[in-house]
């Protein structure tokens, strides 16, 4: 399965198994844990989930935790960026093609899909929870910034589906 959502169907937003509005009660905690467990179970599947990608995120954090990790003066990984990346990965629809994880010289984590020399998307996750993205799809070049509040912005989801199609 390449893209969990059929773009021919008009969805006003991307349904996700991630939790929505926050809560403080014991019951809210209980639901959050149950939801997280269910999501983890699905992500363990290498067919449907992103289990391997979380390991890749750990590896990148380890490799890029020191100054000059790229040999050209890169800054160490920003931990907030890494934390935000985990949230972003959890917000991806189940069944989506797994991205590759990397880091940029300014210490932010990147999530990318490189399908072919004509189709690629790279997203950096800033510590302020901005998603800076750049996509090349044939002759189209699309780039910009979307705020991230726990659910995948529709614009980003559409780009992912166009790139992996």
């Amino acid at each position, binding site marked *: 399965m390449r893209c969990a959502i059929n773009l021919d169907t008009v969805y006003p937003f991307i349904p996700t198994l991630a939790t929505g509005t926050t809560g403080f009660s014991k019951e809210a905690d209980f639901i959050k844990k149950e939801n997280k467990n269910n999501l983890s179970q699905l992500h363990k599947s290498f067919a449907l989930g992103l289990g391997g990608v979380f390991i890749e995120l750990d590896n990148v954090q380890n490799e890029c935790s020191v100054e000059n990790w790229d040999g050209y003066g890169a800054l160490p990984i920003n931990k907030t960026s890494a934390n935000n990346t985990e949230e972003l990965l959890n917000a991806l629809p189940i069944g989506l093609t797994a991205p590759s994880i990397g880091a940029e010289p300014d210490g932010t984590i990147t999530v990318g899909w490189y399908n072919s020399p004509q189709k690629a998307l*790279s997203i950096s996750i800033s510590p302020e929870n901005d998603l800076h993205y750049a996509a090349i799809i044939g002759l189209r070049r699309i780039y910009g910034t979307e705020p991230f509040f726990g659910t995948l912005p529709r614009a980003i989801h559409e780009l992912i589906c166009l790139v992996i199609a």
Partner: protein
Amino acid sequence: MSDDNSLPPVLDDELLVRFILSSSGYTKDLAVTANAFMPNPNTMDTSVFRHSGLSENEMWKIGEQIANLRPAKLHGRADVIAIHVKKQSLSIQPTREPKNHANITGWPSDKPSRKIKALAIALAAGKMVTRP
């Protein structure tokens, strides 16, 4: 390192080499990623080498020397023709030291604009070249 007008300018058809010293510079399929070309956040430039007719062995030796200067592993290199850099409205400034070195400069101030240029160059570079 300072650029010098007496150094021969980088021609459009010259091959430039970006040594990749981190796994962030390529995917599992060895596709070069935008990360490989994003500029240094302090100097706002991207360090490359000019192929300049060097043999493969000589080119790899340069890569090893760079990797040894920092405690880094040489994963491979991204080869890209200079015109693909210039098409992104970026400049390629040769420097006197080290030999055959140049900096890609003129990166825009906003992140997404930098990313799209780096991505275009990465896609033009194609697959990472690994040591035989």
